[in-house]
């Protein structure tokens, strides 16, 4: 049972900190409102009123997030490969180059389709 006491203490501390900072913030923090801050989400899309027919919405955040995931996964594979590079030898090198080439193709597609331009 004593084993779990530190975890319990940590949980109490964490909850206490969260409750304390959230409840103190309205009294101590500065209030400088502007238009963007009053939006429901700060992602560039007005949730209401809906434009006729649903309208179009910008995908730039989504594309950035997707690109991040692509490179994230690339790194996940690169690290173990780098650690075991000596053991895997030429086979590992060739496979990794093939993998990076396929990621590069996706990247080239995004780049040519102006996925990297913010505006």
């Amino acid at each position: 049972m004593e084993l779990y006491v530190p975890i319990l203490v940590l949980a109490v501390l964490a909850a206490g900190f969260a409750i304390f900072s959230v409840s103190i913030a309205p009294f101590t923090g500065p209030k400088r409102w502007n238009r963007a801050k009053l939006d429901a989400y700060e992602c560039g899309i007005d949730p209401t009123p809906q434009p006729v027919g649903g309208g179009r919405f910008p995908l730039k955040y989504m594309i950035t997030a997707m690109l991040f995931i692509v490179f994230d996964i690339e790194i996940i594979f690169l690290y173990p490969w780098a650690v075991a590079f000596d053991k895997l030898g030429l086979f590992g090198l060739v496979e990794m180059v093939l993998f990076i080439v396929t990621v590069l193709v996706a990247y080239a597609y995004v780049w040519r389709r102006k996925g990297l331009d913010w505006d």
Partner: protein
Amino acid sequence: MNDIAAPTIEYGQLAPMLLVFGAAVLGVLVEAFAPRYLRRSIHIPLTLAALVGSFALVLVQVFVSGVPTSPAAMGAVAVDGPTLFLWGVIAALAFVSVLLINDEDNFVAQAAAVPGSADEEDAEIAGFSQTEVYPLVLFAVGGMLLFTASNDLLIMFVALEVMSLPLYLLCGLARRRRLLSQEAAVKYFLLGAFSSAFFLFGMAMVYGFAGSVGLSDINAALPNVGGQEPLLVLGTALLGVGLLFKIGAAPFQAWKPDVYQGAPTPITALMASGTLVAAFGALLRVFWVALGNFDWDWRPVMWGVAILTMVAGAILAITQTDIKRMLAYSSIAHAGFLLTGVIATGAAEQNRDALSGILFYLLVYGITTVGAFAIVTMVRDAGGEAGHLSRWAGLGKRSPMLAGVFAFFLLAFAGIPLTSGFFGKYAVFSAAVAGGVLPLVLVGVVSSAIAAFFYVRVIVLMFFSDPAADGPTVVGPSVGTASVVAVAAAATVVLGVFPEPMLDLADKAASALFVR
């Protein structure tokens, strides 16, 4: 970290699949770098050449280098007789489907434009086309090839996603009736993602039981692991949900009519043929290779699923008023007929005749389906394809040739002698009888009779009703569509009159069953 050996990959065995994936990656590069006006003319030969090449590589393996007898890629992918047969079938079906996809502008000019908006009109006037369709189709086909061959649940899951994700997208790209198409895509995506989650969860359960995701390791673990049966039972059920969803078997069939109706018809043709073939390949592999010795537990459930699928498909098809929905329910019924073969594992743990029958059935059903959907694309109204059955009334009097070929395809679906469908059904049902599932075959025969009713009803409607005054027009087919219809009709006749060579080939493919 002491003994990491570099794995061996049999590139020669995997070549038919790698070629398709390679061409898909090239297609993405074409999208990225080729000027807009050239893209289509690069994609068409690239896509067709990749599929022909893949088919040729399958032939080389079958007739020159010999069918491999052990799994490739460290046991992850099994290129065996059934795999090679189904690879050939998928490559051929994808080839004819691509002829249909090429053919005309069945696809939206700009997928991002809101339906009915000024943007859409601008894109159509500018003559844009969404040429990403070609690489997406190749990725989906590559996924199908891997799906049938995967000998490992993890690879199977990856293949399932590689196959499905492009299809979700392709479903939403119809040029006309775009809202229906987008609705179909969203429904397919949500339900498909849900079923993938079931599959994944089942995989985790089975891993918990067997300590491995390899199909042969699961088989080896069956008699050796004690006290963990709940994991195995749950895992089997959940894997079954994921796979039965993909073939559209009956409690999981609800997506099929909606998606088949909404998707662009060439994509429907690809899904109804290629995806069904691939999903049956995977289903057989999971239930025969991994869980073949567990059949006392899964067979009763599969009995119920098969009966429900056959009956639901045949009966619900009667009430349909849309030709594509009717063909979707017919596809559900056919999935049920095929399931009787899956259940006929026989006295031994597996049954060669049933496997051979299923392989042959998948081939003949796939090719006839593509032909039928090719004809659906040709019967047009002002607003696109004339889907409603009443519009097809009297078509036989106005274009007897077209209606005649369509009637022939419907008879093949119904399994009338002298069509390929007859031998397909005969092969599966006779193997099922030999495998001891006679009651199931009786249900199958009764549902076939019910199904024959609505096929014949369409034929009667086409030939013995008066044509509507403002009936649909039959567009003159392009070379692509015409050749698809011709090839499908020829295959349906040849395989119906002279099926021995293909039956022998299916027998040979099934003779060694699956490698483990």
